[in-house]
């Protein structure tokens, strides 16, 4: 009798433990693929927004920055943007605004692509390969971020369309890039970080390279997105309207 009761209790404990593990795994999965990115992403957006707010200065009005004609009228255009001197590893030196990724999308860019302190950081999201060109210099300004988990800064990278603007904001103003093309490479393909990606020639342009994992949630390949520098809008001229509309820079 006693033995029977004992084994019944043991069975109950084992089944309860198994059920608990199952339910927690399910919750972990939900958090991993969905909820965690919402929470971390919102934190990263807020951190970047407050960073660019700290750079904000009062300007009379935002310059009209027509999506169709771009800056071709020459309004606020500067052919030679200031070059941001490389900062120590782990320093926040810019933010990234990608209207295609959503109205509130703004992420802080830190120097280096260290996993723990930059890419997985709950207030950062995007890292700059220290080995690549400085922001504003001729060559390749290369960034890395997660495609899923830890805020998934580049989670919608596959939504980019040719010509989409990508804004890199610093204390000086906005570096405007336009998305050109994407490609898929193996993780070992470090030539995508060359001054002119894949080639060993002298750079005559400023390129923005974004790297993230591919297929989403795996580590076998990398998704690479290239954008070309178009113009620089000094802060004193006011935020480009696409940026102002995003509600990050009132």
């Amino acid at each position, binding site marked *: 009798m006693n033995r029977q009761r004992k084994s019944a209790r043991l069975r109950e404990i084992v089944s309860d433990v198994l059920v608990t593990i199952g339910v927690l795994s399910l919750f*972990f999965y939900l958090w991993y693929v969905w909820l965690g990115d919402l929470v971390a992403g919102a934190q990263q957006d807020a951190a970047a927004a407050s960073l660019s707010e700290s750079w904000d200065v009062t300007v009379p009005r935002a310059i009209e920055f027509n999506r169709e004609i771009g800056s071709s009228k020459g309004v606020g255009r500067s052919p030679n943007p200031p070059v941001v001197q490389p900062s120590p590893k782990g320093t926040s030196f810019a933010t990234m605004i990608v209207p295609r990724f959503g109205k509130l999308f703004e992420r802080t860019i830190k120097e280096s*692509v260290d996993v723990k302190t930059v890419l997985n950081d709950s207030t950062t999201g995007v890292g700059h390969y220290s080995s690549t060109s400085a922001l504003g210099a001729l060559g390749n300004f290369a960034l890395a971020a997660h495609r*899923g988990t*830890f805020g998934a800064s580049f989670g919608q990278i596959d939504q980019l369309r040719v010509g989409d603007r990508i804004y890199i904001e610093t204390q000086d103003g906005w570096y405007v890039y336009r998305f050109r093309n994407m490609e898929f490479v193996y993780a070992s393909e*470090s030539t995508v970080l060359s001054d002119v990606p894949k080639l060993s020639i002298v750079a005559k342009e400023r390129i923005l390279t974004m790297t993230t994992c591919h297929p989403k949630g795996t*580590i076998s390949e990398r998704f690479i997105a290239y954008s070309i520098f178009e113009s620089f809008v000094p802060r004193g001229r006011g935020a480009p309207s696409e940026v102002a509309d995003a509600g990050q820079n009132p």
Partner: protein
Amino acid sequence: MYSALWRVLPGPRWLKVIEAFVLGVVILSVCVEWVFPWVAENFIQSETTVGQ
């Protein structure tokens, strides 16, 4: 395990239901805040960089 917990919770049945619910929420919050990020960081490979 859970039946023992049910016996330990004080009060009438409706109060026990509320207590159990609150307990569940607390455990889940702890998981979301600390446990899940730790598991994701240490046990799941997720690489975004090239040539590193």
